[in-house]
Every structure is written in C-alpha cells, then in structure tokens.
C-alpha cells in the first residue's frame, strides 16, 4: 500500500546548510511523485520559517499510513518521541562528528555529539531502515546496529548555484595571488588550524602571495574560531587568512570564482558537499583522504592519504604551474557531477525507498 504522505524531520532547519538543503530538495521530489510532503523541525530559522512546520503537529497529523523520514546529524530528545508515532520511519544519517574534536574546546558541542552517537545506537533498535548519505556513513549505521541500510547521496538542487557571483567579492579578491579556498563551518574536525599551518608553509616555500579563505559559519564554534585566528596572528598571517563567516549564494559563487585551488585538511566528513561545489565552480581540489571525502570526490581530486602538510603546499604550487593538470582535474570534476545530478539521485532515492513505499505499515 502506498503511504498517504512522506514527511521529514530534522531538529533545526535553516537556509544554506547541507542537511536543510537536502530536506527541501527531497520535499520537492516527494511532491513531484504525488505525495503530500512537509518538513518539520524543532527550530526553524527566520529565512525558512514560512515553509517549515513545528514538529509538535506531527503528533496530531502523522498516521500509520505516512512515511516519516528522520534526518539525523545531532542528538535530540524529540527523536525518541517521534519513534513512538505510528508512522513508518526511515532514518537518513548525515553523520555526527566524534565528540573528541570538541572536548576542551566546546563543551556544549561535545555533550551534544556524545548524546547524538548514543542516540543513534538506540534508534537502531526502533527504526527499521536507515540510509547513509555516503558509504562512510552507512558503515557507521551498520556498526550502530541498523539491520537494513542503503547509501543514497544528498539530493542537490544545482539550480541554487546558478547565480551571478557577487561583484564586490570578485573585485576585492580577484588578482594574481594564489587563493587557497576551504568552505565549511569553522569546526575542529575540519582542521582549519592545519590549513593555517599549510598556508605558512606555502608562503615560505612556494608562493609569498598565497592567501587562505575560510568560508563558513563560525557562530557555533567561537572558541575554536578564536584559537585559529590567534594561531594565524602568531604566525604573522593575520592578513593572509580571511574568515568570511556565513555567505550568501552569490558570495559563495564569487569565492569559488577567485579561488586558485580548493584544499581540505578535514579529518571527518560525512559527505563533503563543498568538494562537489568546487567541481561545480571548476576549482581543482586537493584533499586529505578522510571520512567520505574520497568516495565523494571519486577520483576527480588530488587525494593524499597522509597529512604531510608540506606536500599539500607543494601540490598547490604544482597546480599553479601546470594549467594542463589543473584542466584535467577540473574536467574530471565536471564529469563526476553527473553522478550527483538530480535525476540520478532521484532515481537512487526511489530505488532505496521502494520497499517503504510499497509495503503496508
């Protein structure tokens, strides 16, 4: 029996973050399949408030004929309540960063990630089916005890990137400099501190003009953000490291537009969306092969297995010297995007949910 509706839940929904974008893109997909579909949250940021429903309504509205998709990236007591609902349930796992990255830096984040991991194990007993957005995530689902699992990547609304790059950003940063870009929340697992050290090497040994752009929100990690800034200052790089904070889509396009290269030293990624963004904006990628980075890049990035910082700095130089190498990587990146096209991921979503959509609750 077909479900009556497919609804989704994530504790927080906002504009611009990867999980929220995924939720909204899936909602459109489910609606296009003819299902009523809504997104529910505990907290909806102002920009999306109008299109998100408060989660409490689920207790009144969800019936046994509905399919409820729980997006999991952080622990919340609400999950325990929702699993008591009569609706069929599927979990989509976006990964929870190991708490060790936050101990001593951000006690709040350490507490929540620790709770999140514990809760994932508890949910394994109550939610029959779970989807990882990467093979890396799926392996964590299996070891958490989920019986039935699948991999379906994030559904990306690529039209969001068809914007005119912000002229102010372009005008300010365009030029002959080596612009090293990393996009992602400022967070200890993403190791922006190591990127600062890499910049120190690059400026000393490869190109004096190199600059590092750290594009991403830092409101949630003020302590780590302050320490990375302090490190840059101690190394005399205060002016060469640019923290942009959260950016609009056109600003994001502009930062990719001025980037010579995208470098990731992140140690833990559940999907690594910015790697695909770099492919979309034709920026070559050099990355530490950690978490899901390698499988998402799929051979179209320069992946290094060990974090040997001078090698990353020299790779940056190599890419600057060799336009042909850069072009090969960029072309491979563009080819790789086909695997994440809306049509491909929609089909994979349908295939993964086939059983949930056909069997009676």
């Amino acid at each position, binding site marked *: 029996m077909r479900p009556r509706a497919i609804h989704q839940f994530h504790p927080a929904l906002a504009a611009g973050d990867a999980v929220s974008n995924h939720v909204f893109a899936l909602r459109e997909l489910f609606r296009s399949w003819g299902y009523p579909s809504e997104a529910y949250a505990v907290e909806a940021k102002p920009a999306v408030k109008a299109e998100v429903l408060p989660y409490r309504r689920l207790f009144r509205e969800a019936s046994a004929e509905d399919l409820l998709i729980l997006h999991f990236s952080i622990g919340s007591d609400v999950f325990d309540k929702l699993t008591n609902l009569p609706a069929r349930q599927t979990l989509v796992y976006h990964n929870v960063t190991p708490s060790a990255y936050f101990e001593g830096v951000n006690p709040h984040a350490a507490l929540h990630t620790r709770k999140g991991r514990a809760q994932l194990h508890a949910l394994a007993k109550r939610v029959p089916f779970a989807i990882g957005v990467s093979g890396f995530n799926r392996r964590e689902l299996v070891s958490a005890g989920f019986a039935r699992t699948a991999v379906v990547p994030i559904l990306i609304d690529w039209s969001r990137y068809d914007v005119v790059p912000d002229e102010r950003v372009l005008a300010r940063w365009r030029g002959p400099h080596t612009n090293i870009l990393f996009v992602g929340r400022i967070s200890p697992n993403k190791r922006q501190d190591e990127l600062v050290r890499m910049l120190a090497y690059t400026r000393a040994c490869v190109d004096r003009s190199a600059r590092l752009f750290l594009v991403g929100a830092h409101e949630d990690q003020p302590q780590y953000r302050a320490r990375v800034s302090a490190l840059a200052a101690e190394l005399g790089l205060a002016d060469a490291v640019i923290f942009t904070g959260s950016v609009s889509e056109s600003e994001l396009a502009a930062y990719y537009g001025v980037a010579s290269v995208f470098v990731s030293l992140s140690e833990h990624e559940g999907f690594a969306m910015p790697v695909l963004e770099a492919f979309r904006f034709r920026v070559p990628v050099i990355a530490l092969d950690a978490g899901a980075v390698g499988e998402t890049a799929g051979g179209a990035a320069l992946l290094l297995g060990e974090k040997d910082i001078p090698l990353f700095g020299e790779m940056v130089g190599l890419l600057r010297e060799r336009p042909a190498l850069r072009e090969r990587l960029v072309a491979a990146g563009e*080819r790789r995007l086909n695997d994440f096209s809306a049509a491909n991921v929609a089909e994979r979503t349908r295939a993964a949910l086939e059983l949930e959509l056909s069997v009676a609750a």
Partner: protein
Amino acid sequence: MSQGHTSERAVDVDALVAEVKGRVRDKRARGVYGPDVDAALLRPLPGGPLASDQLEDALTSLSGAIDQEVAYDPRSRKGGLAGVPITFARRAVIWLIRWYLFEITSRQNHINALALRALRDLDARLPTEVLSRIAALENAKRVVDARENAQYLDYSRFAQRFGGLEGQVRRQAEQFMPYFAGRRRVLDVGSGRGTFLTLAQEVGVGAYGVDLSPQLVEQSRAQGLEVYQIDAEEHLRSLPDASLDGIFAVHFAEHVIPGHLFEILHECKRVLVPGSHCIMATPNPRTLTVGAHTFWLDPTHRKPLPPDAFQFYLQMSGFEPVTIQTYNASEQHLSEEGLDGIALANLRLLNETLFGDRDYAVIGMKP
C-alpha cells in the same frame, strides 16, 4: 555510494606525490624549508592542542590535562540589561555551592593523580618486566632448537666417522636413475657432496640440488654442479606448479618431524609434472639393527619412518602408485649352514628381522 561511475583516476596521484616529495627534499637541502618553517608547522594551537590530537599520545597529554584550570566565565552573553540578572544568578549559585564543588574537585584531583601515577607505573613496568620475560622465553626456545639440531656437534667430523663411503653412495643412487631417464629438471633435496648430481650429469639427466650447508654447496659448485644454499621447503614453495620432472631426496625425511613431512610432500606433488617421480630414501627401521641402533647414531634424526607408514604418507599426498624398494643389505648375518626345515625358516626370519636391508626408498608417481 556513486563510486565506480568515475572510477578511473583523472591524474596519476602517486607520480605527483613522488614529484612534490622531491621538491620538499630539494627545498630542505637548499635551506628554503628551514627551521623557521618547521616551527610554524609544529606551532601548537593557542589554548592547547585539540583533544583529538592528544589521543595520539594520551599518556603525555594526560599529565598536562590534569593540571589545567577549569575556565568558566559566568557572565551572560546576552547583551544589554537582560544579561545582568543572569550573570548575577550564576555567580550566586556558584558561590552557594562552592564548598560542595570543592569537595568534588578535590576528590577528583586525588583520583586523577592516582590514575596518572598508576598508568605511568604500568607504562614503565611493561617494557622492563614483560620484555625481559619475552626475551627469556625466546632464549629458552633458541636453546631447545640448538639442542634438537645438535648445533654444537661438528657435523663434518660426524659424517666422516659415520657417513657412507662415496662409492657406496654412488652405487645406491645409480639404481634409481632409470626413474629420471630423459628428465630435464630434477631436484635433489639435500644434495650433500653432489653424488647424485654428478651421476645425473654423466647420464644426461638435467638436475640441480639444494642444501643447507654452505661448505657442501661451495664444494659442489666447484665441481660445476648447480646447487643452491636454501631451505628445501622454502625452495619448493617458491616453485610454480608443474615445474619439476623429478624429486630425489636421500636421507632427508628422517630429519623432519612427520607433521612437517606431510606439508613438504604436498608441495612435492604440486610442483611435479604428471608422470614424474618423487623418490625419498631413509633408513629402514624394520631392520632391527637399524631401528634400534644405527638410526640413532645421528643426533639430528627425529623419528624413524616405518616403510608402510611412509608409503601411506605419499599416497595421502596424492601420489599413485607408490612402491617401496629396500636396498643396502647388512654386511652381517647369522649363518644358515647345516640347517633345514623349521630351524632354517626360523633363522631366515631372524636374519631378515635383524639384518635386513638397511635403507629403503618410497617411489611415488604423480598421476
């Protein structure tokens, strides 16, 4: 996930890594990548390293972490007047429970100090105590091995005293040559003085040997023989399937324990081509003067192999047919002169039992 769609690598990353490694080395050598850059790369994160990094060297990090002050700022982050009562309330609560907190922290500090001390003691004790015990065990094993192999026996003098005469050994080898007629790659396991190899050369059989004794290998090579100093089993394992057309091993099997012999026979079967032979000769313990006396002259002999048992081992390894051929008749025997009837029959049986052939060979064919 979508792995496989773009499975081919866009660029040869290994080659690029090798290239940039070269650049780093070069910059080191030229002083471009000097101590100042090292210092920058090793610069700790202000405020202390990340907990995730500390896990790499937990014990060292632990002592630093224990001494760290707990920094907590009770001031509210809410701006304006709203923050004032919150800050006040927090300070008041902290003041009220300060002695309770002090009790907890002082006990926790005590436990931390004990735990750190215990871990350090374990860390210090492990290497010395455990390693010395492991070393003692290894040493004991070496002593046992040395004794089992009679390492301190001068084997060349032993061979002079108890080994067979060259001519005799040669005549014994000759009887097996028909099995190798026309063969091109026969292995002599434990080729010794090269008697069999010389014989093979003379009759136009292609053969080579392996032996563990460096002197004997040297000696054989000086005679123009193809001999390698390598463990026989190791050599057999290194050979591809069906790469030999004969194996000859005289007085080899009694030097290994039967369990090991099975493994070697299995390898022999594997490396032989169909229709070729594996011949292994060993002292014949069925002759009591051998089984009870001469077999035990050599301290490196492990266990006597009864002919029917050895035959069975080859059959189990897949050789078919497997025949037994005894040779090297005893020089002594009891005189049968003037006897007949039952007495003669009994004496013959006694002669056979005491003074039968001193060696035998099992001859197996790879089907």
